[in-house]
């Protein structure tokens, strides 16, 4: 005599394959998943409340802590939103530098995704390979802004440092070797029998469902939707660069999203190459004394500049009353900042629309149709979530 009983397994918040402090309550019938209930909030730090109590410039370093694997993308989205609010035009050279660094960040983010995703599914070597290349990129970030993860690489109104000389040479060296490294990863995984068994037809989501669940980035493109904010609503200088939007084979499974992200890294590499060639000469910061502090040499020699600098740093600046929403294509999808200004130096309300939050919501849908417990690990990996931005 046997009685069928549903088994409830608690996965996380301390579990290596949940990529952070995500807790999943998994209902199982044998090994088959019947329901997945995500439980969030273990990393909630109240960043939106914090934003209401900091000046615009003070909040910039906090954005690093959203998606901590792609801090530069967060900096970019935030700076663009504040600049939109201020109606501030950024010099062309600064926009090119932003694009170069943002695309390098996309590569870093995708490398970490590939490394951990493959590791979760039992492939150890890609992890070592990916982190080898990631190290080169983090060194470039360190050369540019002094830190590797929490970068604060941009400023409201431009960029603090030029890409030339040694940094430029390092980036050129990297984009030279990177395509061959991508071939190495592909040789390990793309036609690997075990990899195919673990990813093909796992976590399938149709294009219609993907849009209805507000998936964005590689997750929606993996379902065959050709939508990329860099193309649809170009920001910075993406309209001057030539790139393709990969959409996989149109099945919408984990393998498709793998193909999309790998191809995206190739496209990013292509974009960086073009941007380095096309980058015009020019200023790095916008010419707007309301927002942009005077240069270091002026602060050191002129009293007016010192007062001016102190004024901007201590009191902040007053943007016009109004509200803006600015979205960018971050490595994980649509990252948007919605800022309401009441004319004071601090935002009245700031909502951060993060890609991982919406992407994770689809996990319930993806785990339908008889997925196994081991597939849940693959699905978490393929969603490429970062809890820092989900919980905020």
């Amino acid at each position, binding site marked *: 005599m046997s009685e069928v009983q549903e088994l409830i397994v608690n996965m996380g918040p301390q579990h290596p394959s949940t990529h952070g402090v995500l807790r999943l309550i998994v209902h199982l019938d044998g090994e088959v998943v019947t329901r997945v209930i995500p439980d969030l909030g273990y990393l909630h730090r109240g960043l939106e409340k914090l934003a209401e109590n900091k000046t615009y410039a003070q909040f910039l370093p906090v954005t690093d802590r959203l998606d901590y694997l792609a801090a530069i993308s967060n900096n970019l989205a935030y700076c663009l939103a504040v600049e939109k609010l201020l109606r501030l035009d950024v010099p062309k050279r600064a926009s090119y530098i932003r694009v170069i660094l943002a695309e390098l960040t996309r590569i870093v983010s995708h490398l970490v995704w590939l490394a951990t995703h493959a590791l979760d599914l039992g492939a150890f070597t890609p992890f070592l390979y990916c982190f080898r290349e990631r190290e080169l990129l983090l060194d470039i970030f360190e050369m540019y802004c002094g830190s590797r993860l929490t970068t604060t690489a941009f400023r409201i109104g431009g960029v603090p440092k030029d890409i030339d000389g040694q940094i430029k040479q390092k980036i050129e060296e990297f984009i030279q070797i990177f395509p061959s490294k991508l071939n190495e990863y592909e040789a390990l995984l793309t036609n690997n029998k075990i990899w195919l068994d673990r990813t093909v037809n796992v976590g399938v989501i149709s294009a219609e469902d993907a*849009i*209805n669940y507000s998936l964005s980035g590689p997750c929606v493109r993996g379902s065959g939707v050709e939508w990329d904010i860099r193309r649809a609503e170009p920001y910075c200088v993406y309209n001057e660069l030539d790139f393709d939007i990969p959409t996989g084979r149109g099945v919408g499974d984990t393998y498709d999203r793998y193909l999309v992200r790998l191809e995206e890294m190739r496209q990013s590499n292509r974009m960086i190459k073009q941007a380095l060639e096309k980058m015009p000469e020019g200023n790095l910061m916008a010419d707007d004394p309301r927002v942009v502090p005077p240069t270091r040499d002026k602060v050191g020699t002129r009293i007016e500049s010192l007062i001016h600098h102190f004024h901007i740093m201590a009191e902040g600046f007053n943007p016009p009353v109004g509200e803006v*929403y600015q979205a960018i294509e971050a490595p994980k999808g649509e990252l*948007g900042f919605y800022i309401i200004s*009441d004319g004071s130096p601090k935002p009245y*309300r700031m909502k951060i629309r993060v890609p991982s939050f919406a992407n994770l919501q689809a996990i319930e849908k993806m785990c339908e149709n008889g997925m196994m417990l081991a597939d849940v690990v693959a699905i978490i990996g393929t969603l490429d979530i970062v809890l820092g931005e989900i919980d905020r």
Partner: protein
Amino acid sequence: MSKQEIIKAVKTKWTDAIEGVDDTRDLTIRVKKGNILEICRFLACTPELGFDYLSDICGVDCLSDISRGAVSSSRFDVVYHIYSISKKHRLRIKAAVNENESINSVESVWKAANWYEREIYDMFGIVFDNHSDLRRILLPEDWKGHPLRKDYPLVTDVGEKWLEEKLVTHVPV
């Protein structure tokens, strides 16, 4: 579709439900909260508009506006950012909700609304009618207060008190 065409399309169908239009920057349409579900369904299902993608829903506490004597006397705004993947246009919908009032959930139009509305319920205490699973999402279920309200202090001991209640602390031997 240009901003004017969107405004025209919405206005023709929903003359009475629209409270205001602002097209100076991002296009914003303020609607009556009672019509929110029908308007959202109209925006999502009309082929010319095609707002199939829900970027975001967020809450705004207008407490300071009220104290400044603003026209709107409602405590909260619920703000919907929607986008059309095929038509590539964005729209912001706003609906005013007062304290102790509720607003219809738009989960039946966009499934993604589920978690966004839970987050607003968590952070502002705005109740969504006909929501399938209205629980707190980021904070613990027995948390007191709604942190993104303007009258909720930045630094408080609510967290410590909550922890004291919850945790059995180390007892010295």
